[in-house]
């Protein structure tokens, strides 16, 4: 009797061919994106999303074409950060048109489709089992975003990753081996311990890690115009990665994020020079790891 491998084809289901075709369409759709940059951590609440938007602003200020894909489907922030909560996706000539902020940064976020305070619900034909399929469905949606948005010609597509150490490798697989990673932490041992796990997990991949950013490294006091400490100065956890920079907690920056402020507003804040420096370090590191970056 014949076995599975004695029979050519896939029995008519065409499932494998559809998955392959989808991968090919994603590669084609991203062919004009020069750099994929994933901003992750593993830990939640460290400022990945705000840092992603701020880095996008810093890159935009340098004249780069930048878009953000909010890969956090369950806690999407980028629409609010970009002031695009009232926008829906509309069809363009080559997929859905990417909404842009007034600063010209493209933003694709579930928050434009699902208004606050609603939560994204992952429906399942297998009643009561949506938890079983959540991850698969999430990645299907992300593949559809990569495939179905008109990303166009970009210097940088920043991907704002959700928390979860185990998932960081899955995002690396989704984005492919050329996607570069930047990790965000806060100075606490708790956060650094989780980020250390993410670094270890990413070692399973060939994806370059540009470095890490220490967010909320102190508190910017508006009264005395000085940065005061928030965490103990010494940490027992050291990363074998370049530190791309530090950013103190700045109430003015937090307010700016909440209202979805513009690049023009951002560039008036005390944190702006630090953000620009982080972006410059990031680009320098990217150029070191991918020497032909400018010619890609």
């Amino acid at each position, binding site marked *: *009797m*014949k076995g*599975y491998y004695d*029979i*050519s*084809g*896939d*029995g*008519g*289901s*065409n*499932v494998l*061919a*559809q*998955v*392959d*075709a*989808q991968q090919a369409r994603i590669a084609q759709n991203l062919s004009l994106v020069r750099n994929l940059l994933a901003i992750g951590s593993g830990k939640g609440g460290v400022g990945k999303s705000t840092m992603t938007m701020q880095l996008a602003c810093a890159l935009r200020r340098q004249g780069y074409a930048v878009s953000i894909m909010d890969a956090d489907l369950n806690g999407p922030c980028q629409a609010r950060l970009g002031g695009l909560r009232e*926008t*829906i*996706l*509309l*069809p*363009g*000539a*080559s*997929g*859905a*048109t990417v*909404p*842009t902020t007034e600063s010209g940064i493209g933003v694709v976020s579930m928050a434009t*489709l*699902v*208004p606050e305070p*609603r939560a*994204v*619900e*992952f*429906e*399942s*034909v*297998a*009643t009561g*089992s949506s938890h*079983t*399929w959540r991850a*698969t*469905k999430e990645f*299907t*949606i992300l*593949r*559809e*975003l990569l*495939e*179905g*948005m008109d990303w166009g010609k970009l210097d940088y597509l920043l991907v704002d990753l959700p928390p979860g150490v185990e998932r960081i490798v899955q995002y690396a697989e989704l984005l492919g081996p050329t996607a570069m990673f930047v990790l965000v932490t806060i100075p606490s041992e708790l956060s650094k311990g989780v980020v250390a796990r993410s670094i270890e997990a990413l070692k399973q991949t060939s994806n370059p890690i540009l470095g890490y950013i220490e967010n909320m490294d102190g508190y910017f006091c508006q009264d005395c115009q000085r940065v005061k400490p928030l965490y103990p100065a010494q940490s027992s956890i050291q990363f074998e990665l370049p530190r791309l920079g530090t950013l103190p907690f700045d109430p003015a920056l937090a307010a700016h994020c909440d209202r979805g402020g513009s690049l023009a507003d951002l560039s008036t804040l005390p944190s702006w020079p630090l953000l620009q420096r982080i972006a410059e370090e990031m680009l320098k590191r990217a150029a070191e790891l991918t020497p032909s970056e400018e010619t890609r």
Partner: protein
Amino acid sequence: MKFLCVSCDEAMKLMEVAPPDRGSLSVVYRCPTCAQEIAMLTNPFETQVVSSLGVQIGADSDPMDGESRCPFSSMVPELGAPGEESSPELRWSPEASSRLANMPEFARPLAKAGIEKFAKERGLGEIDLGVLDGARKSMGM
């Protein structure tokens, strides 16, 4: 998944996929030699395995038609959007329909609702590429 006609030792051919019924798919296979037919009846978990990949059993490799995979479809009525059904008084030109079909599937119901609302507010009877451009411009795109 492949099916073998044991008596003929021949691979069976997929003949028909019936629309899902309460999460179950009926897929008919026939032996090309003896014409014996069998039906694979999936349980909802088995159906979900395939649907979660964003593909359909027996579909063409170029998808974009068939059952919605919209994870937000239950919200569409609450958002004042008509979902996949078009308003009867509005026609979609083939070109405009094609552009809609190139969007991520989960985003289509809301896009369709938004465009139809835009067209109705302007007393338009057909949605063509010009209307799509107008809708995008009205949203600053």
